[in-house]
């Protein structure tokens, strides 16, 4: 398969079951909503070292939020419900409670399948030291916690759903700047797709890994088959004309959401074409034995 002169490998991305949630963060203005959301989704690139993978899904105008203030929606994913609940509470306490004017609301539609309610401000309320106040408004419970800038308002719970993490594709290019330019184009297009996040810095990851290592204590190490500087010495997956490889990882609420974002991302990356130095699009997998969800590139791009 070939898209604008770029070869699309006949392979698939292998993804895993995760637990996901969405939180709506609002503030006095977008600047402070972003401060809160950036802190909450900071250090959340990979479950391997961060516990959760999180990112800003999109901006919300004042008429889209519960309290009619501008905001952003964030998505957060973890391998299990326990870690997700723990990380959500910690990040709410350290990043949203602390951020001037910020408020937090449930962002998951209760009609979604298998929604479970998890604590958003339910335990955080005790910060109010007895002066916290609960209000039941239109069937939803909120907590008002007195803080130094006024009142911190948070919904009691948010929804947790079954989600998918680890959708991905690799951009193989003739040079590092060209690989990055293609990934930037892909991320710009993918940001417009709802229900997904690309959790790595700027949405792009350069340190793709393989399972295992020569060092017994490490369970993952650099994906040498895709490292251009090792082309001559390892069993490489790269041809002579490829000098740089970058990966985009996608977590999403459903299989369809991830597939849609991969499609628009690959198409945007390929829009630079082989003349722009983009040579191949591939995907990362573990032979199909570890993850139950397989995103076949040729099927996605049909």
């Amino acid at each position, binding site marked *: 398969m070939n898209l604008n002169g770029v070869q699309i490998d006949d392979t698939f991305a292998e993804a895993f079951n995760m637990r996901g949630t969405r939180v709506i963060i609002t503030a006095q203005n977008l600047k402070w909503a972003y401060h809160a959301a950036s802190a909450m989704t900071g250090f959340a690139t990979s479950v391997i070292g961060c516990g959760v993978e999180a990112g800003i899904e999109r901006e919300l105008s004042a008429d889209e939020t519960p309290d009619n203030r501008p905001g952003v929606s964030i998505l957060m994913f973890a391998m299990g419900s326990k870690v997700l609940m723990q990380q959500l509470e910690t990040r709410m306490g350290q990043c949203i409670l602390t951020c001037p004017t910020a408020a937090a609301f449930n962002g998951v539609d209760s009609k979604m399948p298998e929604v479970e309610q998890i604590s958003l401000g339910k335990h955080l309320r005790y910060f109010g030291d007895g002066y916290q106040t609960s209000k039941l*408004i239109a069937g939803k419970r*909120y907590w008002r916690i007195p803080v130094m800038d006024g009142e911190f*308002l948070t919904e009691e719970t948010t929804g947790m759903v079954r989600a998918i993490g680890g959708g991905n594709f690799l951009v193989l290019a003739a040079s590092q700047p060209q690989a990055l330019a293609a990934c930037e184009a892909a991320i710009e297009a993918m940001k417009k797709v709802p229900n997904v996040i690309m959790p790595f810095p700027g949405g792009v990851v350069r340190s793709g890994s393989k399972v295992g290592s020569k060092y017994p204590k490490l369970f993952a190490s650099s994906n040498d088959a895709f490292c251009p500087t090792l082309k001559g010495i390892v069993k490489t997956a790269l041809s002579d004309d490829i000098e740089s490889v970058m990966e985009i990882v996608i977590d999403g609420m459903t299989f369809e959401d991830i597939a849609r974002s991969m499609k628009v991302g690959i198409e945007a990356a390929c829009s630079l074409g082989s003349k722009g130095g983009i040579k191949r699009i591939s995907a990362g997998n573990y032979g199909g034995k570890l993850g139950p969800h397989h995103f076949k590139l040729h099927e996605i791009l049909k």
Partner: protein
Amino acid sequence: MTALTFTLKTKLQSKLNCSELTPDKLANLSIAQIKTLTLSSNKNAPKVKDFFDVSGDDASHIVFKNISQQCDYIGHHMKNGQITVEGNAGDFLGANMRGGQIICQGDVGDRLGDMMRRGLILIDGDAGAYCGSRMIAGTIGVYGKVGAYMGFALRRGTFLLTQTPATQATWLDCGTHTLPFLSLMFNSFKSLDSKFAKLSNTRVQRWMGDASQNGTGEILIVHR
């Protein structure tokens, strides 16, 4: 479905206990069954049909029409649904309330929301003495004036007022603030047939009390 409507057909000479006429108590009853209900547990208690014309079929929304301040205990211990009072209501409106909402488009008597634990009461007119007495939680809005001893022995809960009530030593002024939760609350009022539907200013003066009970309730005086 139309709201279950109770229209008072006689001029009352004495107090009438309406505590049996709540959405949760009347759910799944036919009009014929409702008409024969007794209005209290007394042996010779009057029946609903002695005082009210009954129409409609949606017990989750009860409307009282043509009633007076002789009708007490409307919405007593109600757990869900809505009660709308078109006109004035008597004492103990929403007493012991456990959920749902009551909208009164006229004045109410004393002890409005006495021992209320949950729910919303909005009064377009004035309220009598001991409004929200012994209240445990919930929200009471009074658009008009409130009588003496408001929030007496209250533990928690919110009063929304548009006029400053009489000062009491056990209610402490906490200053003027812009409270973000009010925009959510005012949004939820917009669909209601009440003067509160017009409110939008989230800047309020906040008093806390009842200090004699270590209460953390609040009176919010909204600037219209």
